[in-house]
């Protein structure tokens, strides 16, 4: 059977991980800079005060003046979700992450080991941990499993038998379907508010009115959805961070810091000559919150210049000064070979001798012995804020 594990309002929970005092207060996730001012997921106290996710910010503050707005923390969300996925994998589950806070896995693989479906699912709930209030839905199809997880109580699992799937789905609301807001409103205006009401309509009529999106939704409520799980491959990632002594907003400085991080990561021993295909740059922002951008390369490369070129334009999207910059190289793959050079570039011998010299200095004095000077604010009137020393590994 297919199990769907969900953690409601995961992005808010992850953002509040280090602020437990706010969990019991009315708090909601603020919109990202530049986005529509709509309230994101909110705490139970906020819900009790009348706040609903998707509400306009002005309306939310008028409804609940004590509402705490929590800054989005995409890097923190990603890190927490990765920790949870790894705990699930350590528990023997081959998981397919759908989005932060939602993952699928097949129970068949560990049913015998755990002693049944319920024990296998309990293993997943234990791996995630009670503070996250996870819930699991189990069914023969992915959509039914997701629907079951959406109504399961916190820390519990709900198993839906194949014969009962249609009956189970019928009274559930339409928002579980992967339909756009407009389509849902259209259906609501037509008097279709429950999955069962959509299931009773003829397929051709739904397809005629709502197009391919509607036809797909109709198939899901008929229990014809996908019954497969594609577990993720064990991730091979390496990361490096650079803390700034003070917040940095200058693009040139950020590009230099990024360059230093690229050099440090490429020099890491555990990379073992493999080239990354996925890159992610993230930053901790001044005053809390974080920012993250990921890039997937067309082909894996370990050429520092190409990595820099792929990431540098992203830095201009940073919404606030950064106090820490982090770079992650993922999907490390063995090199398939590139065109060799006929003539070695000028200076390559000198560079290799220099690299060897630096390696010996580091071996003798310590890994932080060799540093690069990175100009942070060369125009500053305070001399000690003009440049920083960044340890380098290459």
């Amino acid at each position, binding site marked *: 059977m297919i199990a769907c594990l969900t953690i409601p309002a995961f992005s808010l929970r992850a953002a509040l991980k280090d602020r437990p005092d706010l969990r019991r207060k009315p708090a909601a996730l603020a919109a990202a800079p530049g986005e529509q001012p709509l309230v994101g997921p909110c705490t139970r106290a906020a819900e009790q005060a009348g706040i609903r996710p998707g509400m306009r910010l002005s309306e939310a503050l008028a409804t609940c003046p004590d509402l705490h707005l929590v800054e989005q923390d995409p890097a923190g969300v990603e*890190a927490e979700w*990765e920790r949870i996925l*790894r705990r699930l994998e350590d528990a023997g589950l081959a998981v397919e992450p759908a989005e932060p806070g939602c993952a699928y896995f097949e129970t068949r693989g560990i049913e015998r080991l755990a002693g049944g479906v319920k024990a296998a699912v309990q293993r997943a709930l234990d791996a995630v941990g009670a503070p996250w209030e996870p819930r699991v839905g189990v069914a023969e199809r992915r959509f039914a499993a997701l629907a079951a997880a959406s109504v399961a109580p916190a820390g519990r699992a709900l198993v839906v038998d194949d014969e009962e799937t249609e009956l189970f789905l019928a009274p559930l609301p339409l928002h579980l379907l992967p339909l756009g807001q407009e389509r849902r409103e259209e259906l609501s205006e037509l008097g279709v508010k429950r999955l069962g009401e959509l299931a009773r309509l003829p397929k051709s009529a739904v397809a005629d009115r709502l197009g391919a999106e509607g036809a797909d939704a109709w198939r899901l409520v008929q229990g014809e959805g996908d019954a497969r799980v594609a577990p993720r491959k064990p991730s*091979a*990632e*390496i*990361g*490096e*961070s*650079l*803390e*700034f*002594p003070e917040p940095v907003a200058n693009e040139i400085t950020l590009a230099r*810091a990024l360059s230093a991080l690229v050099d440090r990561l490429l020099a890491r021993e*555990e990379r073992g000559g493999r080239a990354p295909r996925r890159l992610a740059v993230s930053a901790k922002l001044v005053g809390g919150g974080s920012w993250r951008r990921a890039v997937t390369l067309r082909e894996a490369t370990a050429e520092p210049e190409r990595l820099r070129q792929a990431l540098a334009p992203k830095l201009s999207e940073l919404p606030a000064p950064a106090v*820490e910059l*982090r770079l*992650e190289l993922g999907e490390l793959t063995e090199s398939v070979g590139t065109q060799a050079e006929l003539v070695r570039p000028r200076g390559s011998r000198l560079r290799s001798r220099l690299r060897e010299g630096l390696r010996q200095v580091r071996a003798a004095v310590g890994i*932080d012995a060799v*540093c690069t*000077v*990175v100009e942070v604010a060369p125009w500053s*009137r*305070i*001399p*000690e*804020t*003009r*440049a*920083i*020393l*960044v*340890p380098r590994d290459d």
Partner: protein
Amino acid sequence: MVAHPRDQGDSRAARRLNEPRPARVEAPENVPTSVGGVVVSSVREEWRVFDRWWTSEPVRRRYFDVVLETGENLAVFYDLERRAWFRQKA
């Protein structure tokens, strides 16, 4: 069990360059006459830096570019916040 690469402590802080160092300065009339026991032969320039007044750590310094009796050229400043003398490459 082998630690996952992302779990490893890979964050190394950058360090500031040219941090001010405490200096022993004699300045009877608020102008340095000796630095570290060496007499100041001339004060080439004097300037003030008032910055970050909007933060909880304002910077209020009075810099002096001095030449010592030994011929050494250096910059010292009086930190009006900490009420102490420092030397620094300005």
